[in-house]
């Protein structure tokens, strides 16, 4: 998949492949959790809400499993070069993925908060959810294929998500001022939109790590980078 020559130690190759496989599994679990939580929010589907909650434990387990395996490889192989970058990126990717899982659970809670309220979900939430989910899927794909160009495309999509979130916020706040508005339900939707926007941020973080993995370039904080090098 990565196009690199195998290590002299085949066991080392198997260990790295193990990390990659677990990352793919964790990514898949998080994507499923997110889909279920979005459906719970948009369609008020209780079964999907329960499914999302059930997946959280598996996501947490996978995070610990990956971290444990990476720590073991760091200790016994003392990796360098692209292997070192892959392993440090993996450690940080699990943190992003676990956070997306947590945010998915927060979305389920927002879906529960909406129960008993007549207000329909804002149509922008579906668009925002689709964008956040697509960004996460593309970032994961870029990570597993080590595709920096695809990762950069994900990063460029983040601004549109921020704008969509701002539009939803303005719209919902405007509705709050109207006669008979259900402010509690509208506030819940503002939170839900913010959750989705944060998921897009984590997808962006993941994509930035892919660029570091492939190119050795840290693109996270360009200004901080130049300050760190003495201007």
């Amino acid at each position: 998949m990565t196009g690199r020559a195998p290590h002299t130690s085949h066991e080392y190759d198997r260990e790295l492949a193990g990390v990659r496989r677990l990352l793919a599994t964790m990514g898949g679990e998080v994507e499923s959790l997110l889909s279920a939580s979005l459906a719970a929010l948009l369609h008020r589907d209780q079964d999907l809400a329960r499914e999302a909650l059930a997946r959280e434990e598996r996501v947490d387990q996978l995070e610990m499993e990956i971290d444990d395996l990476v720590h073991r490889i760091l200790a016994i192989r003392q990796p360098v070069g692209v292997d070192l970058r892959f392993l440090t990126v993996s450690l940080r990717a699990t943190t992003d993925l676990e956070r997306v899982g947590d945010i998915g659970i927060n979305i389920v809670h927002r879906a529960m908060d909406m129960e008993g309220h007549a207000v329909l979900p804002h149509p922008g939430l579906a668009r925002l959810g689709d964008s956040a989910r697509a960004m996460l899927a593309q970032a994961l794909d870029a990570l597993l294929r080590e595709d920096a160009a695809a990762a950069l495309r994900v990063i460029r999509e983040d601004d549109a998500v921020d704008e969509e979130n701002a539009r939803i916020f303005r719209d919902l706040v405007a509705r709050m001022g109207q006669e008979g508005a259900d402010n509690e339900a509208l506030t819940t939707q503002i939170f839900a939109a913010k959750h989705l926007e944060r998921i897009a941020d984590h997808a962006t973080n993941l994509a930035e790590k892919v660029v570091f993995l492939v190119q050795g370039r840290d693109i996270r904080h360009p200004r901080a980078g130049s300050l760190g090098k003495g201007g």
Partner: protein
Amino acid sequence: MSLATNGIDFGAAVPRAEGGEPGARGPERTHLAAQGVTVRYGRNAAIKGVSLKVPEHRVTALIGPSGCGKSTFLRLFNRMNDGIEGISIEGRVFLYDQDIYARDTDAVALRRRVGMVFQRSTPFPKSIYENVAYGLRIAGVRDRSEIARRIEESLVGAGLWDEVKDRMHDSAMGLSGGQAQRLCIARAMAIRPEIILMDEPASALDPIATARIEDLISSLKSRYTIVIVTHNLQQAARVSDYTAFFYMGELVEFAPTQALFTNPGESRTEEYITGRFG
């Protein structure tokens, strides 16, 4: 990045700047420089047209698989290859502006400036005191108090003084491997060289003795320029400021160590340091 060249400017490899930030330490003067050096043993070229500048008061590591020419290259800097039958050396090697292979360069005087520590510790079958005093006497130091002072100074510098100060007249053959290697470093330091070449200095030592040698290397670089050949990549990563990767007699990459071990510029370097070789 540009290293100060002391008037030598022949496009020799200087470590690429990214990652290691040599500029942050201020300009670095070139201490040793190879210019288009080819070394042949008979018809076989062990070094092929290598140009490289070693910065002053830094640790430069030479890495590469067995037979890549790194030890041959190291020994160029104090002419330790001179006596080898059938060897021929093309190109030029400089210590500052001095051409090491010029007809009027005295190899013995050169070796006083460029000391060497070998893979296997080589204590003489003499007392600890005599091991260090021997080189000083050959270097022309006759005054007993000066010899005693220089012995203590070099043993302190090599981190061995506290372990041997009460048994200076015991045989050096009774020292452990790590102590014997530090004695050899003290012996090299006693004649106050500018440069210390180390050829696998810790390869025969246990991990604790190795850690002490590595600590010592780090502490010595404020006073000496150090060039170290090592098979232990982690050791190169730990102790050196710059790393040169040799493969089949060619210099593949020369870069700040941090950059070379996290994001090498050449695919052959990446394959070697990540263990994807052979």
